[in-house]
């Protein structure tokens, strides 16, 4: 029967069809972090309700936790109180917490897959919009609000209307030096930040199949920047190999049985999507954002737009405002623009392969004297693995700070911020006005571009890109 990956998983989770086309869906995994969960648990307890399934509920600390070496909680009194409160709440309610002292703390969207909590076919939620990340393993995963979170805590279910489906195929092979980050930024540039609103996206095609799981996580992570709550990739042998041996993943015969089920999840050949888009992956070059929305993105050596050539008055005004905020001139090129900061981290790009990509660019070189550059690994496990390979030493020798895991400068909730008027090349996911700190100027890019820019002290192309351009 014709069915998409999304439809198959959705249908397996329907407990009851409610009036108005709303489905009551079972939540297999509820992940929590301290920024949103402390208040949700308080609301739950204020109602006199209990956690329906503590064994399917998992918490970590990522948003307000300090990233300074040797940290145990927050950098300030209020953040330490938030962390202490979540520790007490999870203890009292028998919710498993991945914390600093057990060596499993990390950004919630990094540790979910890493611990084998994120599995193909699950329905996973978290009160965080980048929950779409987990769809990379073939799950339905989406961000929810605080009231919905209380609903999940109290009932282990969520009420949802079925979204429309969109398949995006990346056909052809990407060029060397092009990362998953470039692929998804390119797509956001093509569709705009509401191009995926109302849709669950399935990414498919040759260039997607070729991606290792960590790169798929990066790609799905930015689905919400297309407006799509859900982005997913059909599980395949690459996925199954990644899952094997992880803490919470099934093992032995149970894994074999699970894989047999997971193989059935892929969209059927005759599956019908509400919308289909094909992207020629061979055309994608390293991307960087110039403005204050992820759709303000260009190839790294292209010119920023000139608002005068935009016919729509509302859009023209928004381009003007963005250029003014970013202190850029219409039509200028971005490469050569001096920078103050580089941030390599976040749920988008803080996994081992991201750090390897950046380290490869950095090795044997030094960060420009006027640049402050940070690497914030996504989890304690990522940090441990990177140190085992000596990546920490490469970064430290080059003049980077090597910090403890957390969301850090992606969102600045813990106080890790880019200063007013400072220009930062960041591997994170949002370049909104003030996102990295009031008055901060953010350019989103891949770990390779961020690393090259740290060394150059300006927005920099990758070695070899210039020749590639001439040859193209």
């Amino acid at each position, binding site marked *: 029967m014709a069915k998409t990956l999304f439809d198959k998983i959705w249908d397996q989770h329907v407990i009851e069809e409610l009036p108005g086309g709303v489905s009551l869906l079972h939540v297999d995994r509820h992940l929590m972090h301290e*920024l949103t969960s402390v208040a949700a648990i308080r609301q739950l307890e204020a109602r006199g309700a209990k956690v329906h399934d503590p064994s*399917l509920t998992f918490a970590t600390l990522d948003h307000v936790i300090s990233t300074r070496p040797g940290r145990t909680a927050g950098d300030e009194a209020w953040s330490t109180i938030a962390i202490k409160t979540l520790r007490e709440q999870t203890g009292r309610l028998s919710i498993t917490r991945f914390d600093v002292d057990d060596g499993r703390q990390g950004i919630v969207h990094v540790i979910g897959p890493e611990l084998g909590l994120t599995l193909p*076919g699950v329905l996973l939620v978290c009160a965080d919009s980048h929950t779409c990340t987990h769809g990379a393993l073939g799950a339905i995963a989406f961000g929810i609000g605080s009231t919905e979170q209380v609903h999940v805590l109290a009932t282990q279910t969520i009420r949802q209307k079925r979204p429309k489906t969109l398949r995006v195929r990346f056909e052809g092979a990407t060029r060397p030096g092009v990362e998953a980050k470039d692929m998804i930024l390119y797509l956001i540039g093509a569709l705009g930040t509401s191009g995926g609103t109302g849709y669950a996206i399935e990414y498919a095609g040759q260039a997607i199949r070729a991606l290792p799981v960590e790169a798929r996580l990066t790609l799905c992570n930015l689905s919400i920047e297309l407006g799509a709550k859900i982005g997913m990739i059909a599980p395949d042998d690459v996925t199954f190999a990644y899952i094997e041996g992880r803490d919470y993943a099934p093992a032995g015969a149970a894994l074999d049985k699970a894989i047999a089920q997971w193989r059935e999840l892929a969209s059927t050949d005759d599956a019908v999507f509400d919308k289909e888009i094909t992207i020629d992956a061979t055309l994608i070059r390293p991307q960087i954002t110039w403005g204050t929305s992820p759709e303000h993105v260009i190839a790294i050596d292209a010119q920023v737009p000139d608002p005068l050539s935009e016919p729509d008055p509302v859009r023209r005004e*928004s381009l003007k405002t963005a250029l003014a905020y970013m202190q850029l001139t219409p039509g200028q090129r971005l490469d050569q623009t001096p920078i103050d900061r580089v941030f390599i981290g976040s749920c988008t790009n803080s996994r081992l392969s991201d750090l390897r990509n950046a380290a490869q660019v950095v090795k044997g070189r030094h960060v420009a004297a006027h640049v402050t550059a940070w690497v914030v690994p996504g989890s304690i496990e990522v940090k441990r693995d990177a140190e085992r390979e000596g990546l920490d030493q490469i970064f430290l020798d080059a003049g980077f700070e090597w910090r403890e895991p957390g969301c850090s400068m992606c969102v600045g909730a813990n106080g890790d911020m880019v200063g007013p008027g400072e220009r930062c090349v960041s591997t994170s996911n949002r370049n909104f006005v003030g996102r990295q700190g009031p008055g901060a100027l953010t350019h989103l890019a891949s770990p390779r571009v961020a690393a090259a820019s740290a060394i150059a002290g300006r927005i920099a192309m990758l070695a070899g890109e210039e020749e590639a351009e001439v040859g193209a």
Partner: protein
Amino acid sequence: MKAFTVCEGIAAPLMRDNIDTDMIVRVERIAQLGRGQFAPWAFEMARYQADGAEDRSFILNQPPFRDAQILLSGANFGCGSSREMAVWALEEFGIRCVIAQSFGDIFYANCLQNGLLPIRLDGAQIESLAKPALIGERLRVDLRTRTIQAPGIDQIAFDFPDDRREALLEGIDEIDQTMKLNARILAFQRNDAVTRPWVYVQR
């Protein structure tokens, strides 16, 4: 949940696309403040200058719009972060209804959880409402009849799903409703644990 039936009040046009939830309330506030404390911090980056003084050029600092109960905006309002505090900040500021061309999916759902009415209209209709709004005329939004009225323009009808309308009109608490279905939830889990044992963590 707070019920919504009719809202008659000042409407502030914020005619831009992509007003994100970071813009509506900053992360420092959601990390450090609780429900009931957000009103001074709604749109803080636009409302205040670096020295903390109000920026008079921002519409929500100008009379009569500082008492606005309705916002008019462009496409993709509430995109970005899932923070429900964005809805709380609007609601605590006094906003009861946002009329935009489109909304971020998570923000839209969060509105419905808090009795804040999100209405989708096309750009031309919103422009037509912005004209009387800008001269301080009051708009009347009636969810019972799904209509918007403003002086000098024809009544505008808007689409809103029946089930959602009913829930908002009555202020229905979905958590209580779902808790009543617990027997169904437990039965689902019992069956599901047989077909998908790997979902149910034994530890």
